[in-house]
């Protein structure tokens, strides 16, 4: 990818101050976003954050209350869905149950009044790509979940769209198939090199597939960035908590200068860029906490529960004051409930959030 060429071209999709309300309920509160050509963008957020609505606004299935949608530099607010050159994979796949797979694929092309030969060519290409050639004569009802998913993607591919839109496409699949399709969609993106916008509530899908993640909450964008940037440098407590499983530990406390005293008793120096005074929250990811079986360490916690997964071990423990702590240990260790455990917190893994939940800058 060449950054200079992008700068010269208009972004594939540009949203400026998009707002949407249904009746008196505001769902989207002014969203600005630029997406470059060829990017794989994931909208992620809890349910009700407006991610699907935003996708439908881009698709043209709903009209924004205010704001502009630009595709390749052209304003498309009034352009109907079918003429925006986008295609969409729906959560329920929305395959036409009364048509065969082949007819499902060709329906949209026929509506565009394409030559028969061209339609055939595109269907064959897409079918070969997705390995559904042998299914073309069947009806959606006769297909398995994974096959339906492929047909739905195929229907999007044959349109040769500028942008692919995916609306939680994997949520109806079982875990194994979901993993497989995740990889396939990623492969597809590297083959087709189209712009793709993918909506999900599953942070693993977001982390694994995205070039850039857009985290949404309550109709606002919380943060945009590459997956690891978001993971390592969350802008606020919400993003920090949303990405990563098990969730980041949050420990309440107060900051005075660059000394933080937590409710659980721990007192530490933290490299705060701008020392100050006030209530803060210390965040630390479970995998960054070190376990000392001999009881030594920064702090001592009591094991309440644990999960031995083989490769990793999750420990759920409490501080003496009742604050809970989740620890991820990369090895198998012998554990008992009620056992005392020494844990240490490397300060380079600290995240600090101020009273407004925004991330505070640390110097490392």
């Amino acid at each position, binding site marked *: 990818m060449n950054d200079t060429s992008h700068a010269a071209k208009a972004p594939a999709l540009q949203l400026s101050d998009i707002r949407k309300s249904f009746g008196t309920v505001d769902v989207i509160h002014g969203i600005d976003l630029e997406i470059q050509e060829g990017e794989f963008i994931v909208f992620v957020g809890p349910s009700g954050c407006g991610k699907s609505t935003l996708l439908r606004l881009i698709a043209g299935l709903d009209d924004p209350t205010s704001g502009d949608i630009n595709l390749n530099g052209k304003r498309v607010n009034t352009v109907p*869905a*079918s003429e925006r050159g986008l295609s969409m994979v729906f959560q329920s796949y929305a395959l036409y149950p009364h048509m065969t797979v082949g007819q499902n694929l060709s329906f*949209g092309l026929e*509506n565009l009044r394409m030559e028969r030969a061209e339609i055939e060519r595109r269907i064959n290409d897409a079918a070969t790509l997705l390995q559904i050639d042998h299914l073309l004569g069947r009806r959606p009802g006769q297909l398995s979940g994974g096959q339906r998913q492929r047909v739905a993607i195929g229907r999007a591919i044959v349109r040769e769209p500028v942008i692919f839109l995916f609306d939680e496409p994997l949520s109806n699949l079982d875990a194994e198939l979901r993993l497989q399709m995740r990889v396939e969609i990623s492969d597809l993106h590297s083959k087709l090199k189209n712009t793709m916008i993918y909506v999900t509530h599953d942070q693993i899908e977001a982390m694994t597939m995205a070039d850039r993640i857009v985290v949404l909450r309550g109709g606002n964008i919380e943060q945009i960035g590459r997956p690891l940037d978001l993971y390592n440098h969350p802008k606020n407590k919400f993003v920090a908590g949303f990405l990563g499983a098990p969730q980041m530990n949050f420990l309440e406390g107060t900051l005075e200068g660059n000394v933080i005293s937590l409710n659980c008793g721990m007192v530490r120096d933290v490299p705060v860029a701008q020392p100050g005074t006030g209530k803060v929250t210390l965040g630390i990811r479970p995998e960054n906490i070190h376990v000392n079986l001999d009881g030594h360490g920064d702090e001592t916690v009591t094991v309440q529960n644990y999960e031995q997964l083989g490769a990793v071990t999750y420990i759920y423990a409490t501080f003496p004051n009742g604050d809970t702590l989740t620890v991820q240990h990369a090895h198998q260790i012998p554990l008992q409930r009620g056992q005392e455990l020494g844990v240490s917190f490397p300060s380079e893994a600290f995240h600090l959030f101020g009273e407004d939940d925004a991330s505070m800058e640390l110097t490392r």
Partner: protein
Amino acid sequence: MSRLTTFLSRTAGNGPDRAERIGITDVLAYSYLFFGVLIILVPVLWTFFSSIKSDTAVESFDTRLAPMDQISEMIEDVGEKDVWIYTAEDGSTQLVYKAGPTRKVTDVAPVDDPGAVFKVPRTSLAPHEEMRVAVENYLDPILKRNGQDNFHFFTYLYNSVFVTVIATMVTLLINAMAAFALSKYRFRGRLTFTILIVATLLIPSSIILVSLFFVVWSFGLFGSLWGVIIPAAATPTGVFLLRQYMLTIPDELLEAARMDAASEWRIFWRIIIPLSLPALSVLAILSVIWRWNDFLWPLIVLISDPASHTLQLGLTQFAGEFDTNFHYILAMTVVTLIPITLVFVWLQRFITTGIATTGLK
């Protein structure tokens, strides 16, 4: 345990233990069903069997099931005569015809010897019969033979088929359109339209007869088949039946079609219509029954012009004009009930389950 009450409270397929032995409950249930079906079928079948009897058998109210017809033969120099079987006192029988008026002692002559007239008691004569299906009951009115030129069968049939087919097609189309609008669009006035349609459900058709007649007259539809077709083409029942069904079609399908560059009309035509086929066919069957059997409104609109009578009207007029020609009336009654019966036999399972699950009248 009280088994009669068991059947009162039993649901479908309740209890595999029942199959084991036939109890009094089953006997009562089956006898109820059997007598019920007897009451329903016997009059219809009796009409059918009567309709294939000869005119003399029908006029004499012959209650035998088989279509027995007295044989008549051409007797030389005498003409066409009914043939009787004469049983002599010694038990021998002879085919004769009546050579004079029927009296206590009647003049008869053998069929093979027309001149040899002799006297026999009336009680020793029995009609000489054969079993014969009286096809002429059907063919005479249909082909206008034997002076039966008042029953324009093919005209009536054409009118009935025309009204039924066109009205059903129009009904399906416009009701599906309205149902589509009410089920799949959010728009200002949707509630108002829904309430308006419910209101028409509550207006019985017979209380607007008089003014409907004025309206139809003003439109110039009076006396024409369109005057029967159009006023009843929009049925609230149909709209609701289809709307309920269309609500179950996922909106995502429509959105997928919109992404597929289909216009709203094409979505209706290519997605909604094929997916609503079960409900549409129930409405189609209901519409066919309504239209084929419709009586009062066609009677008002079409009665003045025999050329536009439907089969039902034609049959009524026919029955009124020929009060004695029962054999023709019965035959034409059977002709009228045959199409609907065939449809029913063919589609009975579909009709009964379809109406039970999707529709109220």
